[in-house]
């Protein structure tokens, strides 16, 4: 799997995700500067990492979505290439329109940095194939704008097509409002695009890939990708 991690001014999780990818695929990902206009030849997976691109000016992800590299990312996705946006990367994908919906300010108005539990809602994607259906995993979140929102029609489509990838849940797997760190509608933590080759998610699987930091539940996402895009 050839992965390219896009680095925006203000990205800060690019190394974490690159390490997780390297461990899963035994291949070192390329870093691509946001001002570049092309992805490295043969790129299978594009990663938009977490951080605070452009200082979250105007709206989180709004400026980054207009970076020169994003045209190449859109073309890559249109060709069926895989793209994952994590945290700020999810916000950028939403602003670009590669996944539906928006990420609003957390209902608590606070920055939330802690572990959450997620229910794997679909294993039918290159991102989630190594998980068990309905598996409950523990990964961290770290954001102030993760409150997912989409209109009723969009939600109906997402649910009907099984495009909700992850939902915040309790440790026992119950989808309860209090299990959500940000007030996201229907506890949505991650969504797929129509063709299922683009995933946006707020939690950080890349930061839960070693027992020394508390668990390896996140590693399976990168394992899924390494297998699907081998």
């Amino acid at each position, binding site marked *: 799997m050839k992965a390219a991690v896009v680095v925006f001014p203000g990205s800060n999780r690019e190394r974490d995700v690159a390490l997780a990818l390297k461990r899963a695929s035994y291949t070192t990902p390329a870093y691509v500067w946001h001002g570049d206009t092309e992805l490295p030849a043969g790129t299978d997976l594009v990663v938009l990492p977490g951080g605070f691109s452009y200082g979250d000016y105007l709206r989180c992800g709004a400026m980054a979505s207009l970076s020169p590299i994003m045209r190449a990312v859109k073309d890559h996705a249109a060709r069926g290439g895989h793209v994952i946006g994590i945290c700020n990367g999810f916000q950028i994908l939403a*602003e670009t329109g590669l996944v539906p919906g928006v990420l*609003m300010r957390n209902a608590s108005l606070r920055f939330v940095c802690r572990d959450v539990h997620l229910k794997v809602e679909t294993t039918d994607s290159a991102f989630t194939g190594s998980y068990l259906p309905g598996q409950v995993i523990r990964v961290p979140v770290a954001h102030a704008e993760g409150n997912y929102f989409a209109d009723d029609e969009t939600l109906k489509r997402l649910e009907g097509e099984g495009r909700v990838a992850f939902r915040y849940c309790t440790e026992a797997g119950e989808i309860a409002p209090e299990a959500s760190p940000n*007030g996201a509608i229907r506890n949505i933590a991650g969504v797929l695009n129509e063709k299922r080759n683009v995933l946006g998610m707020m939690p950080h699987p890349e930061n839960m890939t070693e027992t020394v930091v508390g668990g390896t539940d996140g590693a399976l996402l990168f394992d899924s990708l390494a297998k699907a895009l081998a």
Partner: protein
Amino acid sequence: MKARVHVTLKHGVLDPQGKAIAHALGSLGFGGVEDVRQGKFLELELAETDAGKAREQVKAMCEKLLANTVIENYTIELV
């Protein structure tokens, strides 16, 4: 020509910041504030002198960047 753009949350979109402001106003003793909706105000200095063209330009700017029309409405005022 100057354009003034107001970006506001659509009806039905929860505005926790507005709620917090309303609550803070109440605790400062300002009674009777039933609701607060927070938005953005942008002032654009335009080279265009034709009002019709200017409005079209600013509308395109709102659609592409200044507002996220999934959750936000915008109004344009030319002065």
